[in-house]
């Protein structure tokens, strides 16, 4: 597997080496070594849980800075619908889009519009015969990566359509080239305003997601939020820019994509721990009658992303108000009775999700079994407190680390205390 380029990183000066991220990392990718958290890049899925739980703000999501994008002559913003839920007392999306133009973007293309296109094509696609069901949404890159690392049987269930952000990027670029023939391709910067580090990683690693990206840079939603605040307060009547409907805006919250399938045999789960349980159950063949599964790593959906500002449930409530009087969809030019086999090729990824396991102990099965036997025998001697003081999230992980030569059995703090007690007892006896 090619090197995966991550967007979650550590600010070592701020890290106190506490166990908050260690214990919550869903893929056991973190260890505390020499008093600092260390992220194993092979296991990390960029879900951003560690960013949310770090009490010292030592975990950062890496993205491009707003100041950096001046290098492009013509800048196009791709705002996600989750951005719309961040502002209080907002009754029209146009204020945000106008705000983006006011802070220096030359054009805006809403990701929500492309989401409505993806919803439409998904409705057609799931009518195809012989597909492995349920179809699993490919919109959340954490889920796609998680499946490729851990769920070999579900790789072919992943929806092979491009994610909305990519379709938005392609359409925005085409529009720029058509309306501004004087622009050279390299003059155009298509800039996604990302609610989470995972989508930033997706852009950096798009080849691993089966296609080339049209996005040139990603700025964190929270940075843009603060840029927008000042401008929007002073704003006059905005231009009528928004072309999103209820469906597109609904994608920002858990269940929004699934309900847009217009089929009641769907499941929508959010929060990475719930997602794990659902994937395990699907892999066991537990949901025979489902057509579609929407999974979001973040609680509440994209509004729960680590680069958002507002509490996800408040954002969700605001989005309900915003979309209340909107048309269902404003971006679906095809008819529902179109042929499911006539979906244009450019809406598909060029290659599907490939299984690339990370957890194998050794190449050779007999060797892997010998290692596991050793891990088990060490694990039996450990206190099973899973306290994390040794720097591993559980006693079992600690045993694994010892066998891999990455940790020393002496580091178990409970054993250390027992040894100390014995030493003291011996001293008392000899007195």
């Amino acid at each position, binding site marked *: 597997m090619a090197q995966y380029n991550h967007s979650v990183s550590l600010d070592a000066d701020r890290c106190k080496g506490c166990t908050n991220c260690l214990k919550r990392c869903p893929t056991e990718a973190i260890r505390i070594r020499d008093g600092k958290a260390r992220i194993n890049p092979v296991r990390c899925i960029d879900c951003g849980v560690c960013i949310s739980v770090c009490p010292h703000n030592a975990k950062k999501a890496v993205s491009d800075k707003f100041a950096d994008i001046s290098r492009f002559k013509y800048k196009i913003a791709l705002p996600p619908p989750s951005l719309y839920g961040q502002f209080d007392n907002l009754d029209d999306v146009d204020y945000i889009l106008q705000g983006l133009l006011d802070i220096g973007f030359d054009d805006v293309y809403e990701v929500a519009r492309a989401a409505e296109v993806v919803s439409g094509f998904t409705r057609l696609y799931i009518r195809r015969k012989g597909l492995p069901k349920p179809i699993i949404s490919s919109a959340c890159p954490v889920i796609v990566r998680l499946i490729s690392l*851990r769920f*070999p*049987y579900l790789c072919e269930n992943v929806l092979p359509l491009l994610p909305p952000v990519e379709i938005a990027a392609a359409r925005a670029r085409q529009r720029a080239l058509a309306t501004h023939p004087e622009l050279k391709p390299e003059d155009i910067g298509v800039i996604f305003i990302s609610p989470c580090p995972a989508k930033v990683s997706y852009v950096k690693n798009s080849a691993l997601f089966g296609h080339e990206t049209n996005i040139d840079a990603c700025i964190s939603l929270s940075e843009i939020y603060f840029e927008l605040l000042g401008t929007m307060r002073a704003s006059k009547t905005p231009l009528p820019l928004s072309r999103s409907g209820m469906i597109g805006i609904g994608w920002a919250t858990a269940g929004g994509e699934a309900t847009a399938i217009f089929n009641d045999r769907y499941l929508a789960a959010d929060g990475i721990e719930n997602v794990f349980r659902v994937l*395990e*159950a699907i*892999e*066991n*063949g537990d949901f025979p009658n489902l057509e579609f599964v929407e999974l979001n790593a973040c609680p509440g959906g994209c509004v729960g992303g680590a680069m958002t500002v507002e509490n996800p449930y408040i954002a969700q409530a605001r989005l309900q108000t915003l979309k209340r009087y909107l048309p269902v969809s404003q971006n679906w030019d095809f008819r529902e009775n179109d042929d499911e086999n006539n979906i244009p090729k450019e809406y598909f990824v060029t290659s599907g999700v490939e*299984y690339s*396991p990370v*957890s*194998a*102990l*050794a*190449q*050779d*099965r*007999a060797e*892997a*079994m*010998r290692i*596991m*036997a050793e891990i*088990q025998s060490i694990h039996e001697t450990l206190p099973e407190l899973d306290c994390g003081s040794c720097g591993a999230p559980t006693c079992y992980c600690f045993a694994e680390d010892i066998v891999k030569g990455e940790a020393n059995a002496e580091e178990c703090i409970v054993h250390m205390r027992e040894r100390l007690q014995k030493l003291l007892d011996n001293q008392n006896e000899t007195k």
Partner: protein
Amino acid sequence: MGETLHFHYDVDGGNFTSAGDASVHVKRKLRQLGFPPETIKRVSIAMYEGEINMVIHAGGGTADVFVSPESVKIVLADKGPGIEDISLAMKEGYSTAPENVRSLGFGAGMGLPNMKRYTDSMDIESELGVGTTITMTVNL
């Protein structure tokens, strides 16, 4: 036979929320050991069905899994009511699961047939009022 790994689980009776935990655990172990995905799928489905059966019909039991480089053996033992007619129980669609269990989506009468389908050998020892022991093997 070379080295064998042994995993032991107590399967809690009547607790549907944890039903299936042992098979998920075994699946993870087999993945770590580098077993082919097809084998892992067969083992986890067969074991999952058996685990659920013990929860529904027998008030729980034990699951022991023996892993060697060539095969995976699953032994599920319970002290439940026993199976009255094994060949009838092996029929697809036949079920004695109570209504409350069916309402949870279980009890479709596919448990034992699926276990047989996904394994290379399956042996059922059952005595009424004493319990049931099912031994399944999946070869590589």
